[in-house]
């Protein structure tokens, strides 16, 4: 399995490097010296491209001794991880509208549920206390304004 991953990663990395190198062509020449704006990015891109190519080739020729679980969408664990990412995206999208306090309590409760916690009293108490604690530390003590929610007029 790892062999396929390495070949895919190597090939994709090489294509990415080719695109990035092409993109550096849009950078203007630097008037401050012969070594211009694109010089350092190009060195790193060439290094990246060569290493990706070598990874794909060595994985193709040799049998990789490393093993890893395939990324299978039917796998419950993978599904949980994806749901967690999606939940974070939704949380980040709605936090300015509904405010840190309301969103975080719900988000924490949901994450605990995803982690198979089923003690609802503990989940509820912990969600409220953690949210309140973080809000107090950042908003009140450290003066870092967390979103209070546009729908409440803040």
């Amino acid at each position, binding site marked *: 399995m790892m062999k396929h991953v390495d070949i895919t990663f190597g090939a994709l990395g090489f294509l990415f490097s080719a695109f990035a190198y092409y993109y550096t062509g849009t950078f203007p020449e630097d008037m401050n010296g012969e070594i211009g704006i694109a010089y350092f990015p190009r060195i790193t891109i060439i290094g990246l491209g060569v290493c990706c190519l070598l990874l794909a080739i060595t994985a193709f020729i040799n049998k990789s001794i490393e093993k890893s679980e395939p990324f299978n969408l039917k796998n419950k664990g993978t599904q949980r991880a994806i749901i967690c990412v999606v939940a974070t995206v939704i949380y980040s999208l709605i936090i300015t509208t509904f405010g840190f306090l309301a969103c975080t309590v719900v988000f924490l409760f949901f994450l605990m549920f995803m*982690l198979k916690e089923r003690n609802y009293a503990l989940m509820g108490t912990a969600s409220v206390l*953690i949210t309140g604690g973080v809000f107090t530390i950042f908003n009140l003590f450290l003066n870092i304004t967390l979103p209070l929610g546009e729908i409440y007029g803040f």
Partner: protein
Amino acid sequence: MDFELFVVEMINVLHWQVLMMIFIGVTGGILIGSLPGLTATMGVALLVPFTFGLPLTESIGMLLGIFCGAIYGGSISAILIRTPGTPAAAATLLDGYPLAQRGQAGRALSMSVFASFIGGLTGALIMTFLSPQISKFALQFGAAEYFGLAVFGLSIIISVSSGSILKGLIIGFLGLLISTVGMDPISGYPRFTFGSMDLFEGPSFIPTLIGLFALAEVFKGVETLDTTQKTVAKIKNVFPVMSDIKKCWKVIAKSSLLGTFIGSIPGAGSDIAAFVGYSEAKRTSKTPEKFGTGKIEGVAAAESANNACTGGAMIPLLSLGIPGDAVTAILLGAFVIQGLQPGPMMYVENMDVIYSVFSSMMVANIALLIVGLIGIRFFARAITVRKSILLPTIFVLSLVGAYSMRNSMFDIWLALAFGVIGYFLQRYRFPVSPILLAIILGPMAESNLRRALIVADNSILEVMTKPITATLLTLGILTLVTSILRHRKHSNKIAAMEMLEKGK
């Protein structure tokens, strides 16, 4: 050196009101430093207003206490939850977290506080006695020398990469490429920003760090649902055990000296010092392959180097009036508000204040040891909290930490994106640490190489053959070659063992 005046100032600092301010500063610094996303810079900036109304000695004591406390505080979350509270603690997690995973969080924390204390005290002592001399040598560091220092730091990319060398290099190059995103350091031209104003300054370091380590760890935790309780070996003694001190004293001594010197170079902060200290400890170790798997020397090297940097950073500030990094820039502002003007004349006109700073720094490090050791039992308990509660807490704290750097939602998105990248990298056995190293050192390498070349009329030979640069580059190449050789030897050993297993 006027010893009489120094003793008078030390006695002043030992006054209970000053001591109280130092302890408050250290405690506040540790708390702020341990929160992911809140750096030492932010800690000092946030607490500076509290010092305005205080007398000078108390004010200096509190500020230096915050500075030292915050640098150490970052290691607590790095060791316990794999999230460096400050960039300075990024190197600490390489061995600190594996130790915590093995149930030795207390051991890692006590070594961390002990090494921080020795490092900080060494920095303060060197600052007291050698400030003018060191600042003269540090001023010899031009663009070429900075480039050499960055390359030396980058040379440990392979040695921090467990597993495949190629994968380590790929991630290192990817990190270097990421470090080029944003405005070009010489011309200001925006590179790889695709029109986004948020990327003009490049991807912020803290959200990147939080994403790659904290969020990726949570995603992994959610996937594997490993809800088994982390065990913490019962902490009988908060002091590091004698055998650990014996193992680490050489590393601590070397890293403390290195850290102080790196701190004294303007622009090279404690994050760089920690990686260079770690790199040097690994390079000279008899068992370098064990670094990154939970070796106590790794924690000691990184922590002594980054805290020694606090003393070193005060050297150019006090003797030349040059703030070496963001924290010392804020301290400079605080000194000015108190009616002082750091610089060469301060050594003539305000020698009492200089000694007051030296004394406060030493006492702040002693306070750090006391508060740190008392806190170990409480800190270590954090990972005994149920994982179903702990992981969501880390997650929210990380997102808020990412947001708090610039009050920007973009940084949350950035952290999330790096979280997903970090998750996949871990899943497919790509080492994550090289990306961190590259993002810290890449901008330093690029900007200084280009500046050096402009000065040297594009002669790369002239840049590379400067004595300090040549020494640093040679050390870097040596580190790289020995890492590759050791890596090969290790891989061959594993392959031979596997063949033997198959034969059986």
